């Protein structure tokens, strides 16, 4: 398969690991954050960290859209789903995200009409086919997913589909990254940038990281050789005293992003003044709501929902995991009370969550075998 096999060549991977080893300075500890949960998943699926020198540590960032949804927003979705004549649609991994009184899947078991969709377009199709029902799409995701919601809302408006609406939980990646850089808890040496978000926003918005915080960024693809090469590029910048945004994923990411997608998003969305992130608290201008031109499709206006902030369960340490302060195995409930089958925290629910990646690929202990 083109664009896949050539980026999974084990011999090239070992050769790249050798170049990484030759680039690191003995005695120096490097902490590199992969911002995106897709990278975290690939790193553990392919055992990439086992190819790295012991002094290169990968820290997992907040770029998993399911993981950062706060409990109160899940409760709002459930409250709307339980209202008469409502069909609530969402992506599959959202179904099992715990709110304060269960999940959307639990609501479905109680009789709510909750359906999994592949894209918001599917939700719009359900609305067209069921004009007697109110079809609500529970929208989540970063800038990669937001264009899909925006295009669907444009279609709904153009077609006059009045029984369709959206609970908008789209978030933006740069404000939490800035918050992490401001955090005294964490010292990072560089960032593996989120390749898929950058297909939309481009690499340019990440320039504030080297300019304002003196940390290098490499926008990375998701195959094993992509990630290894990105790590090598970061380490080379550090070794050479350079600090800039480099684009390893040039086959996909234009430096200025997808201008059509940005234009559609600017039409349909506007920034919320602030938004709550699970475990990270409220972050200014870190999420999107529907613009005035699309407010007729805003489910938060159409339906009543609690809109209450709910504290995370005390046992769960997803917040620290999402900020890269602790590793999943350091959480008190990891792999015991919290498993993918019975998740307490969101990081164990989504395949892109760091806890699920550690659990699914057997990283249950703190030791790392370096080859």
């Amino acid at each position, binding site marked *: 398969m083109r664009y896949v096999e050539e980026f999974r060549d084990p011999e090239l991977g070992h050769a790249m690991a050798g170049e990484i080893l030759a680039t690191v300075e003995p005695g120096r500890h490097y902490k590199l954050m992969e911002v995106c949960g897709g990278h975290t998943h690939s790193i553990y699926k392919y055992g990439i960290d086992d190819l790295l020198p012991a002094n290169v540590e990968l820290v997992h960032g907040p770029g998993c859209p399911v993981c950062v949804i706060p409990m109160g927003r899940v409760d709002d979705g459930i409250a709307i789903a339980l209202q008469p004549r409502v069909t609530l649609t969402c992506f599959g991994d959202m179904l099992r995200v715990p709110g304060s009184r269960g999940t959307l899947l639990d609501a479905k078991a109680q009789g709510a009409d909750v359906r999994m969709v592949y894209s918001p377009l*599917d939700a719009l199709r359900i609305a067209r086919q069921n004009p007697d029902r109110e079809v609500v799409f529970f929208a989540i995701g970063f800038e990669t997913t937001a264009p899909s*919601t925006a*295009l669907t809302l444009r279609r709904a408006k153009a077609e006059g589909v009045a029984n369709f609406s959206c609970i908008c939980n789209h978030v933006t990646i740069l404000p939490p990254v800035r918050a992490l850089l401001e955090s005294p808890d964490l010292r990072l040496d560089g960032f593996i940038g989120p390749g898929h978000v950058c297909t*939309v926003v481009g690499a340019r918005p990440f320039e504030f990281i080297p300019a304002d915080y003196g940390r290098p960024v490499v926008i990375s693809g998701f195959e094993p050789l992509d990630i290894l090469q990105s790590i090598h590029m970061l380490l080379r910048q550090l070794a050479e005293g350079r600090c800039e945004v480099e684009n390893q994923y040039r086959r996909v990411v234009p430096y200025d992003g997808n201008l059509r997608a940005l234009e559609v998003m600017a039409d349909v969305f506007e920034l919320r003044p602030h938004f709550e992130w699970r475990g990270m608290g409220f972050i200014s201008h870190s999420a999107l709501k529907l613009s005035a031109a699309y407010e007729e499709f805003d489910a938060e206006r159409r339906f009543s929902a609690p809109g209450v902030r709910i504290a995370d369960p005390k046992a769960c340490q997803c917040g620290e995991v999402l900020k890269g302060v602790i590793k999943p195995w350091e959480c008190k409930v990891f792999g015991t009370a919290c498993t993918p089958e019975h998740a307490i925290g969101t990081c164990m629910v989504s395949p892109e969550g760091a806890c699920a990646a550690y659990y699914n690929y057997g990283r249950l202990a703190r030791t790392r075998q370096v080859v």
Partner: protein
Amino acid sequence: MTVVRVDGERGLALCASEDGARHTVETGLVDPVSLGDSVLVHAGVALVTLPG
């Protein structure tokens, strides 16, 4: 995903994934696609046409 049918009028394409599953994909954010093109799709929308 690979484009297997194009509905240019509605800005849609039928695309096949690596495992053979087929999905309707919105193509309004990329230049017009042709049969056999590889596209990066996220949540039902083509975000990039990959170089041939």
